[in-house]
């Protein structure tokens, strides 16, 4: 494990330059594209130029760019992401603290949905290889990736919320549901506080966004499971099971266990896509998480908010990749660092 520890330490150290590069890129892009937070917030209000100047000064936007760059970086390193440039006095760290649990909840649910959908469709395709079902699943595996989340989300909303009234159209809780927030992950909070109606309500709100993410991100799993399970099903040990009269569904379970290694590998890679998908899913479903926040902040040119969110995103991706790497070594003894 010494090798693993060294490897993980090296990987952890790499998170810092990754964040630094991302921060620099975002800082430059934000300043290069026209528009600034003061004008974006004012819009077409007829405000005297002195008021605009005063506000630019208050927000430090009249300082040289390199000063703005290092000022923010110095504060960010201390965990202080500054104040919003649009909602004055609003701490970005507080905003992020509010939004992160919502995104985690959605990401975990979306991730689970994608794996379940991928496993189910992939297994079906592998077992019925060459059939119509296989063809349909293969098409899904390819098409899923090209599906536009807002489009798919709108379809699901129209069907399940507007037509059938089974599920809510957006948000995290119904307006009338009360919940004492502990962690910010509403399903968990509802369980912790023993609030069953709120739990049911939170789950209902989670279903459509998670399903949307699940359908879009489940495609690659379908392909992976289909190929990998197909190979395993034709291997000698499976033939041996069958020869011994083991029931087919049990055979399938053993085969699936062996076919999952490439799937697990892919799970780690999918995290960045999951967070990317969350931005669009959150906007479609009015889900108040990091994705929605980033989208709004970019539209309003809220420099500090965008920078803070990107740093947090990068940190989460870096950290989870690290955990996934560590898990490989634990899951698969052949992997040595």
């Amino acid at each position, binding site marked *: 494990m010494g090798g693993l520890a060294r490897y993980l330490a090296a990987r952890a150290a790499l998170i810092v330059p990754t964040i630094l590069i991302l921060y620099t890129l975002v800082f430059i892009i934000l300043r290069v594209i*026209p528009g600034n937070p003061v004008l974006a917030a004012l819009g077409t*209000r007829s405000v005297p130029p002195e008021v605009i100047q005063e506000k630019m000064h208050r927000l430090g936007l009249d300082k040289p760019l390199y000063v703005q760059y290092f000022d923010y970086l110095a504060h960010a390193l201390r965990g202080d992401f500054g104040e919003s440039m649009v909602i004055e*006095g609003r701490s970005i760290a507080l905003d992020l603290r*509010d939004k992160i649990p919502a995104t985690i909840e959605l990401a975990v649910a979306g991730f689970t949905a994608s794996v379940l959908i991928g496993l189910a469709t992939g297994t079906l395709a592998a077992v019925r290889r060459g059939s119509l079902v296989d063809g349909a699943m293969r098409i899904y595996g390819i098409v899923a990736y090209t599906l536009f989340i807002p489009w798919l989300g709108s379809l699901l909303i129209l069907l399940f919320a507007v037509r059938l009234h089974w599920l809510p*159209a957006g948000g995290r809780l119904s307006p009338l549901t009360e919940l004492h927030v502990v962690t910010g992950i509403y399903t968990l909070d509802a369980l912790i506080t023993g609030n069953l109606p709120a739990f049911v309500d939170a789950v209902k709100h989670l279903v459509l966004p998670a399903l949307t993410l699940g359908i879009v991100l489940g495609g690659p799993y379908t392909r992976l499971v289909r190929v990998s399970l197909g190979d395993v099903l034709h291997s000698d040990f499976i033939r041996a099971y069958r020869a011994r009269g083991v029931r087919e569904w049990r055979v399938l379970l053993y085969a699936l266990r062996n076919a999952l290694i490439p799937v697990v590998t892919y799970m780690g890679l999918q995290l960045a896509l999951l967070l990317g998908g969350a931005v669009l899913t959150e906007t479609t479903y009015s889900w*108040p998480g990091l994705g929605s926040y980033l989208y709004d902040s970019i539209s309003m040119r809220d420099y500090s908010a965008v920078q803070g969110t990107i740093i947090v995103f990068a940190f989460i991706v870096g950290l989870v990749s690290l955990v996934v790497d560590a898990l490989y070594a634990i899951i698969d003894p052949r992997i040595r660092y």
Partner: protein
Amino acid sequence: MYRRAASRRGIGKAAAAGIIVVIIVIAAAAYLMAGRGGQGAGTSPAAQAKPKVVVIGVTDKITDLDPANAYDFFTWEVLSNIMAGLVKYDPDTGKIVGDLATSWDVQEGGKVWVFHLRKDAKFADGTPCTARDVVRSVERVMTIKGDPSWLVTDFVEKVEALDNYTVKFTLKTPASYFLALVATPPYFPVHPKYPPKNISSDAIWGGCGPYKIQEWKRDEKLVLVPNPYYYGPKPKNDKVIIVFYKNAQALRSALESGEIDIAWRTLNPEDIEALKAKQGFKVVEIPGLFIRYVVIRTSQPPTDNVLVRRALAAAVNRTEIAEVVYKGTVEPLYSLVPKGMWSHIDAFKKYGDANITLARQLLQQAGYSEDNKLHIELWYTPTHYGDTESQLAAILKQEWERTGMITVDVKSSEWSQYVSQLRSGQFMVSLLGWYPDYLDPDDYLTPFLMSTANSWTGTGYNNSQVDQLLKQAQTITDQAQREQIYKQVQQILADDVPYIPLIQGKLYLVTSSKVVSLKVSPLMFLLYDTIEVSG
């Protein structure tokens, strides 16, 4: 191998059984706790004495819950419901009436305004609201110098409390429409907890209006309950919940799925049309003071030529725009001062609608022909005025190109970039919209035509006669005289054409059948205390 697999399977079964037992125990405990503590942590609001709750959905956002910096339509609506001003607009007559002030005196020809306050006004925690709170709040706006501060600082020289219930404003110059200014949020007294020198964007202390904030989760929901110390009539409901949606489609879905009772700003024209035809929903049309117009840069060729600008005005077909783009949800507009406001005249009617013959004549006089076409760059933003904006730009292009002597390049940029380009005068021709700050023709003319105030539009329009007329109208207290001046200014506007008025928007809200009645103020703010819901 098989045996080992079987033993693993055995452990798996035990683990699965354990997990199931744990889940059942948690679920049962949760159910019992929810049942026992239903009134506390549980939800079941229906089980209680059926409070009358109104749920309003919006796509707007709240910027600052602080009148010292808030400067957008929706935040002003919320502030108007949790705070009270010295005066307000009567929703039935549209006239300015006393609110915190019971009466006022105008002295020194409109330079000094003295307001006499009611003695029973209190903030939501029972703290009395006095003249000193008014002075503190107005001075706070002047100190903080936030976005809307000019509504105070441009006019007020000094504000003082003559006693606990008398406030005196001394203005820099007489302002005939000062009452309209005093009705805006920067003049609202705020609770003493608001920091005197800083903006407090998430402040929940409010003012002395009909409601107080019970819960505020930015971008999620705002919960208001009646202010128990409010001096006015008791609100017709027990709670107002405002839910924030990301887009019009989500808002419509929420209404149709029964999650909200009122879909307020802003649904798309298609949604309004569709909901009109659906049972169980009521579409309420609110006469709007919102206007849309074309801005023309007058400082550079080819649009520095007034003949070109007049030709563009003549070729526009407002009826077509209203019908095709907005599905009849708006009205054609022929002046910057909206229809229904005193002094309005249909100044641009002299060009007619889709008057191609006149447009061609004017273009010929300006030296253009079918072989030597006028080239226009028309800018719009797809990210601020809704999904209809690209259609509006496309239809204007068609209308101008129908002259056979104009080619139009349609260009777009997203909102924050757009306003930056606009202010720096980069657009030849662009599309904009305007909501009033205060209800007076001055607010529809001065920001556009006064050369010292119109730099934000990028038009570069400068006419000393107009400047003088507008200044004169600001200081005259006689409305008939002011009306004459504003009519004259509108005539000059139609002659010089730095802007082409297009349409006057109406606002729409759609309610579920649960909503019995509601009222909207002349400023187009929904008055939450007037919303009555059934059971």
